[in-house]
């Protein structure tokens, strides 16, 4: 289904890879920056295939009446959301695999030193950001305004996280904000697994931040879920 919609496939899949290619070309030869770039793009990919994609999809399906129709069938809600989550995990896993491969082949980064850590961070990141995406869909009143709402969250989070991750001299309050958001801890964890070799033990606090967001997101996603559009 996903691949039948070329624009969705492009924004979720190809765009992060284009960022990776462009960044890689600019930073070619500077291994320090490449080491920062690859996990950053990996983190952004997780966020775009989960948070962004789900916020879009849920609003679209809600406003088009697809969710209402599904609600009238014997399909249990839990199965439906299980499917949505499994789809998000599959898409993200595929994308991370491509990024890991590109890091190995093009950017002089070895195979991830901690596969277990990579999997833990990807799975926790996907579940948390997917839940936040579904929860955020409740705040979006109609499909036309989805892009504005989603980008108003997605872009600042990406910028502040990238900035703080890359720059040791970021102002303290900006750092505090970034550390409290889910994306920067996710990039830290991915970086530990893919680049620096710091194990899971050294990123437990980062994992905790993502998990807290996940619990918060799940609570809001379930509590406020609306099957019907405003029509």
């Amino acid at each position: 289904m996903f691949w039948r919609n070329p624009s969705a496939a492009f924004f979720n899949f190809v765009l992060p890879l284009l960022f990776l290619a462009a960044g890689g070309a600019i930073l070619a030869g500077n291994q320090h920056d490449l080491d920062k770039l690859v996990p950053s793009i990996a983190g952004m990919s997780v966020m775009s295939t989960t948070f962004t994609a789900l916020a879009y999809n849920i609003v679209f399906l809600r406003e088009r009446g697809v969710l209402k129709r599904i609600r009238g069938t014997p399909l249990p809600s839990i199965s439906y959301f299980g499917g949505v989550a499994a789809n998000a995990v599959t898409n993200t896993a595929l994308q991370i695999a491509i990024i890991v491969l590109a890091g190995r082949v093009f950017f002089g980064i070895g195979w991830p030193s901690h596969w277990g850590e990579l999997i833990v961070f990807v799975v926790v990141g996907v579940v948390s950001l997917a839940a936040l995406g579904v929860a955020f869909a409740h705040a979006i009143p109609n499909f036309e305004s989805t892009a504005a709402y989603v980008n108003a969250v997605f872009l600042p989070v990406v910028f502040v996280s990238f900035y703080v991750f890359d720059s040791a001299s970021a102002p303290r309050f900006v750092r505090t904000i970034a550390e409290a958001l889910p994306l920067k801890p996710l990039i830290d964890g991915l970086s530990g697994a893919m680049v620096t070799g710091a194990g899971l033990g050294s990123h437990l606090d980062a994992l905790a931040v993502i998990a807290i967001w996940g619990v918060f997101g799940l609570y809001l996603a379930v509590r406020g879920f609306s099957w019907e559009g405003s029509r």
Partner: protein
Amino acid sequence: MFGLLGPNGAGKTTTVEILEGYRARTSGEVSVLGHDPANRSIELRRRIGIVLQSGGIYSHITPREALAHWASFYPHPRDVEEVLALVGLQEKADERSRRLSGGQLRRLDFALALVGDPELIFLDEPTTGFDPQARRAAWETVRSLRALGKTILLTTHYLEEAQELADRVAIVKDGRVLAIGPPRELMAHPPRHPPGGEAHGLRYKIAYRDSDGEMVERETDDPTALLHELTGEALASGRQLQELSVARPTLEDVYLELTAASSGERDA
């Protein structure tokens, strides 16, 4: 087949959505196939099929895939090919749904409601916005559902549709039932409104063009006698009754009487 007939805003969709389990009732008791729909039990949803007034479908799925997917939700689904044939979508079975026309999408709506082989089917204004030809085609589909032995609850604001399809009709306005019965019976013995009030008496209408070329319309409870009288006079004087027509009272007459009477009462 039961028809729920009323003007826009009469409470038809609200009623149906309570029965379907989408909305909570404010008071009273509701039972659908022995279940309270507010509990949203899977057992009940396996036995009903719903055609929403405006239900969407994924843009990139084909009717055959959608039906196969929907069939997997139910314990004893109908055969997908059979359902495609029943609604007349075989030729479009592998077309992406966003390329289907409005009428074809509506047929897909019917098919999706049908594929679980439900006992009870809800049709909420199935032909609103259709052109006359598409409406006739949709009626054929609905009749074929009835031929399968399904119980169908139809809501509509088209009188013709209720008269054409429903075995029994309830006329509703402002959330209240004004009349209930088979369309034929409602026409033959129109209910009085307010109850016990004066009989409005729906009458046959006989119309013709007189010798001055004017249209004359006469109402009567006894069309045989009036017709005899008119034709007798015409024959005796050697004239023709141009454009002679005799019209039975229609459901529309009942409906207009009832809805007009009820708003008159409310305004008073």
